[in-house]
């Protein structure tokens, strides 16, 4: 019975890793970029299952929400922004109509063929070196499992991953929230969002589906944040689920959304880093060290911190999807040097 279980599990692992590798190869070598994006979405789905097999449910949850959920739409939206211009460009050249949209890129890659072979050989050598290095690592590797388990009581939460993230290595997480904010600031300063064109034929089915899903998504996001203290979950997963709600709102073109002022958005995005920083400073005052919490109230502190982080993570990820500063935020007309060439939809 037990050996049969091992055999089936090994078969599962083998099939899963072979499929992952095959998918990665397909997504990098397939001729069509849309196909590659679809492969990437499937890759994210299967990665979540691989994390489960590694007994890392927290990572699997983050991968399910971010890798399988959000990154695919990010790529799809970017693809559309790129392709629209290419299609317009093709109008000047009716001969090319049947060609692949990314033909330009294909041709250049074929020209660079000898160089490609050199790069491939170098990469293979590198891969061999890496595999050899991994092979000679002395096993079993030392780990921090015992130390983490020993200090779990002082951290204020029961989930070891959350304890490591927010208490033991709070610096990392603080800087990470800053990175998210920085990413959002970068995007907002690069471009303003070509705000969702109000497509003429929004289906009523979609609207009611979004209306049904939205409260449930928000509820689940909050539940995941709350649950992070003692089981799988936490600020990142909850935040990612919350951002999915915003992305759903963005893609179904609810009318009030583009007119919303960005001030609440900014406040929400800054909330997480701000709370984190003030907690850090509070730690200096009360405990004489940056980011240290009194063990008795640590649970409450961490929950507060997680809630704030989840809000700002959700808003930042949604800002990533929107891909720019909200247009309603601009005092004057958007920057228009060579607008005549671009197509303005819906206006």
């Amino acid at each position, binding site marked *: 019975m037990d050996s049969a279980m091992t055999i089936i599990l090994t078969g599962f692992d083998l099939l899963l890793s072979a499929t992952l590798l095959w998918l990665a190869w397909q997504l990098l070598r397939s001729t069509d970029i849309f196909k590659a994006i679809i492969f990437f979405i499937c890759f994210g789905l299967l990665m979540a299952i691989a994390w489960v097999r590694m007994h890392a449910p927290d990572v699997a949850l983050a991968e399910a929400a971010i890798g399988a959920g959000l990154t695919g739409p990010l790529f799809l939206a970017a693809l559309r922004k790129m392709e629209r211009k290419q299609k317009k460009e093709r109008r000047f050249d009716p001969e090319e109509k049947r060609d692949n949209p990314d033909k330009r890129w294909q041709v250049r890659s074929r020209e660079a063929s000898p160089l490609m072979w050199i790069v491939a050989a170098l990469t293979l050598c590198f891969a061999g070196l890496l595999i050899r290095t991994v092979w000679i690592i002395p096993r079993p590797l030392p780990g921090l499992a015992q130390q983490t388990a020993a200090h779990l009581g002082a951290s204020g939460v029961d989930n070891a991953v959350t304890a490591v993230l927010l208490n033991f290595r709070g610096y990392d997480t603080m800087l990470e929230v800053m990175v998210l904010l920085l990413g959002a600031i970068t995007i907002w300063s690069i471009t303003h969002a070509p705000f969702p064109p109000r497509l003429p*034929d929004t*289906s009523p*089915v*979609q609207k009611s*589906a979004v209306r*049904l*899903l939205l409260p*449930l998504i928000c509820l689940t996001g909050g539940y995941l944040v709350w649950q992070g203290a003692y089981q799988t979950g936490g600020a990142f997963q909850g935040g990612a689920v919350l951002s999915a709600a915003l992305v759903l709102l963005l893609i179904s073109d609810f009318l009030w959304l583009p007119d919303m002022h960005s001030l609440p958005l900014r406040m929400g995005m800054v909330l997480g880093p701000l709370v984190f920083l003030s907690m850090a400073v509070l730690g200096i005052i009360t405990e004489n060290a940056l980011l240290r919490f009194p063990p008795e109230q640590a649970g409450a502190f961490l929950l507060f911190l997680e809630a704030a982080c989840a809000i700002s993570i959700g808003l930042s990820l949604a800002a990533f999807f929107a891909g720019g500063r909200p247009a309603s935020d601009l005092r004057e007309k958007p920057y228009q040097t060579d607008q005549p060439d671009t197509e303005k939809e819906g206006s």
Partner: protein
Amino acid sequence: MTIPEIIGLVSIAVALPFFLSGTVGMLRFPDIFTRLHALTKADNVGLGFLILGLCLQANDWFIVIKLVLIWVLVLIASSASCHLVARRALMKGIRPWTAQ
């Protein structure tokens, strides 16, 4: 094994052909509309039987509620997105396949 557990296993076994037929239909059916039909068989009936089976094995009401919620959510998501795809396909002028 108790009777609910056996019924649960049978229900999971019933679910598997639906998943298989979803995939086979995806591969064998001639056009996008019929493929949507195959897809929803796996989504609705297959997952429904699977979740029924798992509910019978579960020993916690909270888990049962979550499982049923998952099924309802998948129903909403799959019906809405299949509707959108079919609608857009019709608008783009893709003709439904007929026997001729």
